[in-house]
């Protein structure tokens, strides 16, 4: 119970810390809206007017992914700059319990992007928020955010070790958008990308949200998304224990 309380308070504090940064808020709101605008024009020119809500949702999920990716990498790096990484890693807790609230918080603050793209679509382009399964959409959104947070934990385990974590984060943003089919169907991608897509929780989260938006079997995707992300949690937890020790050996918890 005390562990759950610690995770909840830790997540809340990191959500507060991230949400009070005007820069991070601007990035979370503006970039997904620009991407959604591009997507709408692409869908329109392709004669797929009926899929505009999918464009808004897809761009929002891209925003959640960016938030988790840069949040997990950036937050670790920011904490290193702030000198807090050493302080939190010094806590007498398993490293996974220390880092998980940060990555879940980055997923939660990614919700701002999803809300921004939906509101933008509604008020600027008159896109009706006519979800095929509204309740399933909310559940899928929550699962997607938590799942991405757990995936972020796996990423964070490498970021703890790397002093230049942002460099890795930059290279991962676009490929995961593409491979996960956040905007384009993964069927149009080369066949060799399919196994990669299947292993990513982003693929199943995006798929669940798309199915909840335009119709389809939502729950299997939600279930697989949750399963893959739990696997990420276990792997991330194991990796973090190993990585924390290596970071202490390599002296990468601090800047210098």
């Amino acid at each position, binding site marked *: 119970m*005390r562990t759950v*309380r*610690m995770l909840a*308070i*830790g997540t809340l*504090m990191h959500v*507060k*810390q991230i949400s*009070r*940064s005007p820069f991070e808020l601007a990035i979370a709101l503006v970039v997904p809206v620009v991407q959604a605008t591009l997507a709408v024009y692409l869908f329109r020119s392709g004669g797929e007017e009926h899929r505009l809500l999918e464009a808004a949702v897809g761009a929002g999920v891209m925003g959640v992914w960016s938030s988790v990716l840069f949040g997990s990498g950036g937050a670790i790096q920011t904490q290193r*700059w*702030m*000198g*807090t990484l*050493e*302080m*939190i*890693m*010094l*806590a*007498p*807790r398993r490293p996974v319990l*220390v880092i998980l609230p940060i990555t879940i918080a980055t997923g939660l603050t990614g919700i701002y992007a999803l809300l921004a793209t939906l509101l933008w679509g509604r008020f600027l382009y008159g896109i009706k928020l006519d979800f095929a399964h509204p309740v399933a959409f909310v559940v899928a959104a929550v699962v997607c955010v938590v799942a991405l947070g757990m995936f972020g934990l796996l990423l964070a385990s490498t970021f703890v070790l790397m002093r230049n974590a942002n460099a890795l984060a930059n290279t991962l943003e676009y490929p995961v958008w593409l491979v996960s089919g956040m905007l384009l169907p993964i069927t149009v991608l080369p066949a060799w990308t399919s196994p990669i897509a299947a292993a990513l929780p982003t693929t199943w989260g995006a798929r669940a949200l798309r199915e909840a938006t335009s119709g389809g079997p939502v729950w299997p995707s939600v279930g697989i998304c949750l399963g893959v992300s739990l696997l990420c949690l276990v792997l991330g937890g194991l990796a973090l224990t190993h990585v924390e*020790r290596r970071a*202490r*050996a390599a*002296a990468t*918890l*601090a800047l210098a």
Partner: protein
Amino acid sequence: MGRSDHAIEAVDLRRTYRARTGWLRPTRTEVEAVRGVTFTVGRGELFGLLGPNGAGKTTTIKLLNTLLIPTSGTARVCGFDVEKDTREVRRRIGYVFGGDRGLYDRLSALDNLRYFAELYGVAPREQKRRIAELLDLVGLAGRERERVEGYSRGMRQRLHIARGLLHGPDVLFLDEPSIGVDPVAARELRRTVADLAATGTTVLLTTHYMAEADELCDRIAVIADGQIQALGTPSELRRRADGRRVVEVEAYGVPESAVDALRGLPGVRETAVEARGALQLLTVHSDAHVDVQGDVLRELSGIRLGRVNSREPTLEDAYVAIVSAA
């Protein structure tokens, strides 16, 4: 794990930093930051670690508080091995470092303390009382709901201390806690540290300020070049400068050649030059029975001078003597 008489035991601690730069032709560099440090700190003792920048003070503290793994050697805190019993050690220690960093700036002091209280396993029903107590102790009561980004450096430092004490640690590591803090705040900080030691908390303090070490510490280890050069009570260390006399000269624009010439004077043991804005403070250590003041002033003829002072050596002089001999 048996209860040890010592709160801290370090035996032949060594730490080498290895770095690699470049991809095509990588260059590997190695820096031996700590080279065989051995000492013990008794329970409830206030122990000082003094040394110049880059001497290995922070690395030693980080080896003891589990943030770094020793390259070789062993260390125990409260009887627990810092490498093998990491979590047991962490439960019993607090770590406070000087400067602006180490806090969540966009959170209030209260939120910072609540978060760290959770992380450090303070029981939920004790948290409110403990946080209020500590805010009172460090003089931040009434300001706890303000965001830390609006705090002065002194306030941040006090918040650091409150954070370090949340879980009532047996051993507190203070790494240059008074760096950049104004004199009044530094005095309050020294009082807080002394009170902690008086109530039985073992404190390992690193500092640049001799007066601070002299006032607070039961024993001091002088570290330079990654090795302990001297260890003893402040009065024992002061005796290292026995048989010496110190001449201090304020000067403007002293060339290196003049300083070299001073070193060659008969009876002179060491010289040091400290820049203080436009002014340079020359410190000349000599044998007590040799009056070098006249010779020093002769060597500096033609150079604009300020105050000239001849005095008995202090702890700081002893420190300079120890570090210079390293």
